[in-house]
């Protein structure tokens, strides 16, 4: 079965989710990956959206973080202060699943500005929940299409801490959580090197070359000693994903 780069990215991201995870889910690609996991190998996963919906099981992907579907299918819906205080800061979330506008090799995330903060070239939406998701969840999975614009040597602004500017910042700040551990792109999977805290490529998607990966990355890409080839999406994964996307599009078009 053939598939698009976005499809393999979503499928591979979904595989990172475990059945007993409690995931704090960002909108867009993270939401697609988490729900795909829930509809395939991880039916027991708990999905939490920052709108207050806990244990939600949407039939279509939400366009916003607070679509009615999320509330109607949740185990319970709590206030936003409670969500951030008791559930996120309380240390109850095993995985934060995020995207980014800019990302560096230490997993630092910029969703604030391109350029200078006070005189930005592009004013992005901002951090939202991410600054505290990045430090309060057990670990962080990132999912993002690879490009030189997005994968930069140094982010213009650290909206949400990855492993900092040197890889040592989390420890220096006394942060006990793991931070970014996995980065899934449309070309490959990177994982965080336990020593340097830099991303290293551990798996390459079928048909993708190392040149392509480097051409779409603003830092010098490094590789694990053993790099595997990513397993292709199964027929089941693809059909569940496509059904989900189709239901979603139909619903959001207002049909």
């Amino acid at each position: 079965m053939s598939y698009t780069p976005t499809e393999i990215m979503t499928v591979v991201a979904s595989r990172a989710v475990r059945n007993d995870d409690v995931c704090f889910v960002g909108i867009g690609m993270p939401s697609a990956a988490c729900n795909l996991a829930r509809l395939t190998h991880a039916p027991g996963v708990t999905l939490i959206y920052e709108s207050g919906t806990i244990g939600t099981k949407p039939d279509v992907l939400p366009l916003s973080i607070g679509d009615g579907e999320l509330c109607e299918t949740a185990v319970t819906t709590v206030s936003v202060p409670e969500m951030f205080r008791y559930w996120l800061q309380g240390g109850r979330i095993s995985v934060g699943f995020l995207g980014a506008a800019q990302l560096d090799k230490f997993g630092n995330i910029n969703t604030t500005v391109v350029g200078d903060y006070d005189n930005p070239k592009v004013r992005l939406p901002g951090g939202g929940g991410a600054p505290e998701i990045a430090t309060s969840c057990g670990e962080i999975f990132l999912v993002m299409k690879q490009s030189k614009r997005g994968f930069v040597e140094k982010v213009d602004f650290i909206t949400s801490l990855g492993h900092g500017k040197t890889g040592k910042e989390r420890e220096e700040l006394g942060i006990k959580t793991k931070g970014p551990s996995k980065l899934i792109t449309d070309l490959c999977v990177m994982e965080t090197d336990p020593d340097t805290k830099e991303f290293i490529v551990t798996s390459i998607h079928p048909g993708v070359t190392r040149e392509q990966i480097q051409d779409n990355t603003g830092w010098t890409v490094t590789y694990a000693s053993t790099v595997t080839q990513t397993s292709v999406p199964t027929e089941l994964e693809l059909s569940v994903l496509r059904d989900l996307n189709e239901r979603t599009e139909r619903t959001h078009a207002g049909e």
Partner: protein
Amino acid sequence: MAKFVSLKDAIAEYLHDGDVVAMEGFTHLIPHAAGHEVIRQQKKDLTLIRMTPDLVYDQLIGSGCAKKVVFSWGGNPGVGSLRRLRDSYENGWPHKIEIEEHSHAAMASAYEAGAAGLPCAIFRGYLGAELAEVNPNIRSIKCPFTSEQLAAVPAIRPDVTIIHAQKANKNGDVLVEGIIGVQKEAALAAKRVIVTVEEVVDNFDDVHTNACILPAWTITAIATVPGGSHPSYALGYYPRDNAFYKNWDAIAADRDAFTAWIKANVLEVGPEVFAQKVKWLEK
């Protein structure tokens, strides 16, 4: 004690030029009709507080009502930028807006502190985050037991909070249900509270004992505006108009298109148009 009034009178009487205003609703129950009334009455110099500014603040900013916006995520959810917010901040149209930027955890805690009558909120946040370097309202305190450094932000205490809710009862108590966001906190933190509701019912006898209810004596004015949160939604009444959110991007991208849209859909009409906007969405 809550007074039942028209939306026009509520905004005219209780929201003044220069006020600090929070119109809250986390995706759900966003008070769009009230925002349009503020535009119609051409209120000025407002400091607009909101975790997720959304389209309603894009419209207020593009219409020149705002001096400053305090926010934590300023986008069109699932679609992209708030183009009027950006045009004001980046290019000064219609004038340059000031911004004060936080994280969700900070603003949620700041609303909580506002409701709790505290001067500040503390939380474990902004660790390694550069917003703490550009926003002087992000400070820290040391825990007197563990010596851990915790982030501190000032409590949010709006002059006026505006929310949309599903129902009021005849006594003026207000019910919010579903994704309740920070509405209770925003209301209890404010000096004055304006609420638009889908409908007024006789009583809340059938409402769950722990549902989110704001008693009448915590509210200043209630106006009935069916559909008043469109294109946001009111759980139990109508779903989110996701198509409108997608279409807004093109309207907001162009100053003339935006101005024409505001003229036709805000300035030349009244809150009664909202009932019509949700007719086709109702199940």
